[in-house]
């Protein structure tokens, strides 16, 4: 792991998009690996039961464990966790795609959806 970050707080989250590069992929490799393991139902069950134990068994570093505990999905994205893998972990914390996505915007899923549903309805009634 890069020693660019000593603590989770050191991960900067400037506004705007993140492009997932090889560097992200290498930084986030083990975090991505633990998320990838959750594509199996048996592992999701274990993670849900006791994620501390699951992380320990997986051999995550203390930094990586802190990152999971923080549930700071925006920091995870900047660190190098793939958006397609984050969801597998978020789901085991009973968070939907909208939940962790809206978190990155600094809002609740409910707010995000209530703002967007009228836009969606309005656009699609005229589409075709």
């Amino acid at each position: 792991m890069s020693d660019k970050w000593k603590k989770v707080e050191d991960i900067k989250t400037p506004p705007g998009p993140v492009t997932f590069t090889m560097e992200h992929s290498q930084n986030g490799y083990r975090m991505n690996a633990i998320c990838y393991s959750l594509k199996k139902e048996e592992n999701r069950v274990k993670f849900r039961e006791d994620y501390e134990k699951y992380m320990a068994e997986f051999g995550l570093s203390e930094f990586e464990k802190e990152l999971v505990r923080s549930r700071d999905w925006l920091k995870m994205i900047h660190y190098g966790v793939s958006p397609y893998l984050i969801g597998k972990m978020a789901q085991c914390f009973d968070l939907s795609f909208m939940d962790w996505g809206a978190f990155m915007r600094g809002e609740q899923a409910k707010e995000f959806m209530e703002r967007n549903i009228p836009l969606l309805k309005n656009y699609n009634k005229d589409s075709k």
Partner: protein
Amino acid sequence: MANFVGGICTSHNGALMHGWDYQLREDPIWTPLFESYDPVRQWIKDKKVDVLFFVFNDHVSNFFFDCYPTFAIGIAEQYEHADEGSGPRDLAIPYGDVPFSRYMADYLIRDEFDLAVCQEMKLDHGIMGPTPYMLDQPWPVKFVPFCVNVIQHPIPSVKRCWKLGKSIRKAIEAYPEDINVAVVGTGGLSHELQGTNFGRIELDWDNEFMDKFEVEPESMLDWDVKEFMDRGGSESAETVMWFAMRGAMNKKVRRIHRNLYRGMLTGMAVLVFEDAE
């Protein structure tokens, strides 16, 4: 000889999975989305399509970053459904056309596309998102999955995908069996899932893009992928896969169908082209 019947481009996303798995066609929010695929379903029937050649991307459902192929083709007899978090989906088994798939791999590699060749591939919403909307089940066609890395940058350029489309077309037309093949490009259009602009959608750009894509696709061949990401959000990098479909078509096309639906997180588009006479 095989017959190239035309091309389809479609978005793929989690919403398509959700809408199908919960059978939301009668929900007024979802009805226009379902209806936007009805003409595609009819076209596939009318053209008696035997094989759909999908240029799509995996979402770390099958491949992991230990070895993430830039281009990979499936040559399997059948494919499993990926578990994207809620178990494998309850959809019909996608069968491959093994001789055709092997032939395509062989042709494309000889034509300088250096592919990973896969005997197993779990298909995720990159293919199976839109598929139930445009095909009945059990599937009336065989599948050839051609996977493109669009998630770990650098990714193939617009021009590379365009050339891939040209090669796919040549290959199809040189195949000695009498089958009807359509090429499908999946992904896009505008969406951004990484960072503080989560949920960004650019419908004006999506429409402008589809205009250009139909009439003057060559004007975009030299664009860096970043140009698409700036205009349509970080995940619209997926749009490069549409150029494989467009590259397979003649310069002039006839539009059979086009629709843009505003999803919650994605400009969800579908279109069908045939070569113009």
